[in-house]
């Protein structure tokens, strides 16, 4: 038992621990973020909806977070260029972050992402549902044709009943 629990802990630890490549990437990203600190600051505040979406969305709902992130990103990019055009310093970054109009644009674009997700999901599921219903109808129709041509025997029900009876015997 003790061995088993140790093995489990080992496995859990291994899965929580990041690999060497990931660690290096993280270090690289932190270094980049430190080098481009004004941009990083803008993106940190601008991408809050995406971060929320990633944390809120559960397992298997990465697609919605991705949609929101894409639109959130599309909202941030023009302001990143604006930052870079105006000196790329803390002051300019702070000005953008504190500008309600700019931040509204960024957050509305993220909300637009959420809307795309809602609309597209509705349209697609209705379409696929209808497609499924149609396929079921087609299957029934084909099965009816088979029964018409081959009789009830083609359903295999008689054989199943016979097998069951023989099995009981």
């Amino acid at each position, binding site marked *: 038992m003790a061995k088993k629990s140790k093995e489990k802990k080992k496995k859990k630890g291994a899965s929580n621990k990041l690999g060497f490549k990931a660690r290096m990437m993280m270090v690289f990203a932190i270094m980049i973020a430190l080098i481009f600190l004004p941009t990083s600051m803008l993106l940190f505040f601008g991408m809050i909806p995406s971060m929320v979406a990633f944390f809120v969305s559960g397992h298997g709902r990465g697609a919605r977070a991705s949609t929101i992130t894409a639109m959130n990103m599309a909202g941030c990019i023009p302001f990143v260029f604006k930052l870079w055009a105006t000196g790329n310093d803390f002051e300019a970054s702070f000005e953008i972050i504190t500008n309600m109009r700019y931040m509204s644009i960024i957050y509305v674009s993220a909300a637009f992402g959420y809307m795309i997700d809602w609309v597209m999901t509705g349209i697609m599921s209705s379409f696929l549902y209808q497609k*499924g219903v149609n396929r079921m109808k087609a299957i029934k129709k084909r099965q009816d044709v088979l029964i018409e041509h081959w009789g009830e025997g083609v359903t295999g029900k008689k054989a199943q009943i016979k097998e069951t009876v023989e099995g009981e015997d």
Partner: protein
Amino acid sequence: MSDFDDDESVPQTRGGMVSFGKFMSINTARRLSDYDNGRSYAYEAIDNRDRSKKFIAIVADIAQLPRWSQIDTYTGLADTSLLRLVGSGVLRWPPAGGKQHYIFLYQGGLGECLVKKGEFSKSQWRQPDVTNFFVVPMARMLKEMSERSFYHGSIRPSNIFYAGVDKNKPVILGDGLSVHANSTQPSVFLPINKALAEPLGRGTGSLSDDVYAFGVTLAMVLRKNDELAGLSDEDILRKKIETGSYNTIVGAERFQATFMELLRGILHDDPAVRWRLDDIFSWLDGSRVTPPSLSRRTKANRPLIFDGKKYLYPDALAADLQSNPAEVVKLVSNDIFTQWIEKSFTDKDLEHNYHRALDRTASIGSIKENSDFLVTQLTMALNPALPVHYKGLNFTFDGLGGLMARAAYEDIDMSIFKDILLQNIPDHSVTLKRLPESETLAHIKNFDIYRAALQQKKQGYGIERCIYMMCKNAPCLSPKLKGYFVYNDKSALLTFERLSKQGGQIALFLDAHSIAFFATHNGRIMERVIYDLSSADKNKKIAGNLRFLAMVQNRAKVTTCPSIANVFLGGLSGVYKLYNNVNLRKKVEEGVKFEASKGNLIGMSGLIDNEKARTKDKKAFELARREYYLLQQEYDQYNVKLSNKKTYGVVNGRDSAALVAWVIATAITLMSVLSFLSGYRIF
């Protein structure tokens, strides 16, 4: 199948005349009793094209077991002293209420019979004439018959004819086909073993029996006194057992010395010593042949008292044992019998046979409970020449088949015959006979085959199969065919057609008897349908019946069987289901109906048993079943998925939304990059 077989309803009699075949008529009002053979009665028959030509029609009922299977052999015999068979076949016999009888049509104008019962020969032949006109033709006939393995079985003075007192012509031997071999012979004309057996239990006949009957007949032709006058058949038999056949038949008669030699040779009771044909021909040639000495009977030095009588001879005791089985058990249990056998004889064979009989009885159970078996075994041990006695049945080892056929015909319980075969009684009998070893082995091999058939549970086997294997002349004894003489496939087809016309028939024509009969006589055809006939599925059985009758229709060249076809039409509804495809089934059904309207069983069977179409249909059906199964699986999956409309397609929808969002985001990013590079500021 003979040209004379009728296929119409009961023939109409006009002035007592019944049509037989295309050109013959039998006069039912004109009996020719001189030519009767037992209960097979003779009638006058005429040729309608030339009414001056007279024929003898001998009418045989099934109960006589006429020898239809040997007709071809008989017609192949060329000897002019044999009664010429003009035709044969089945006829619905009006005097018997239309019940089918087998008719043997012989050439007429035979003259008188040689010696009438209780009379002396009227031929007034001198002794050389007896040789020329009787002995020589008889020997010639016996030779030819034995060469073709045909044994007459009805040689007696009343069945031998001569042209007349003034016409010196060879004799003509009468009918031997209309009855089971030896079944109509008075016991005086039979060797002791055959005479003690029941008429139908006397076996298939043998040259030795015919030679013996010829000897008795010769003695009756020559005699001037009747040595046997006033003696019953039983007395004659008793006398034969006690003094031997030669002494019984010849007695105090004094014939020419040469004839005495011949008679001593051919009337010997031991078939192994009895003169053969070669000896008779040597005698005819004038060569000196030593007649066999009469065998000495084994005699005890003190008698055994059985059933109040004293017995000194074991062979005489053997014949009486069956009269009181309880006393036999008592004598054996008290060791009186054993002491008599061991101390009163010096015959080691007798002692050995006696002890073997006791051992065999002990091997199946206690002596008391198996008293019948004990009596049977002791009878065989004390007198191996006697027929088998078992529970009131008396038969030779090759005569069981005839008795079985009679029992089946009379609807008697067959269990006794099963016991006889399973207890190896015929085998025991044959091993005690002094037959050549090869012959004994051949008989035992046949009994093994019969036993194997008896114990098989499959269709076409069982006691029914044994009947037809052991009695080749038994027609089909199916209860369904009562009153009909069905002896080959064509006669079966015509009979079924008649029965179907009368109504009340079902499509399962073949029962255990008919299957066994045709498995014996038409094995090749039956082999092709036996699998279906043995099936538990009724539809397969019906299909098997149809296929069999179609093959018979084809073989027999019967153009139409509308009534049988109609019966099948009513029973084939389930058979069509052997085809899975509904359209094909309908097509087959329509085709079968069309063929049935023409009475064409071959066409009907061909449509139902189209192996190529059936295989194709089966394969296609398997594919259809698989397709149906896969479709059902898919349907079930959709059914589960679509049961929650809210969640169905959400994942695909989100993936699509993400794709759209990323496309828009990429477009905005590109526009931003371009505007940044071009110096244009959006904000």
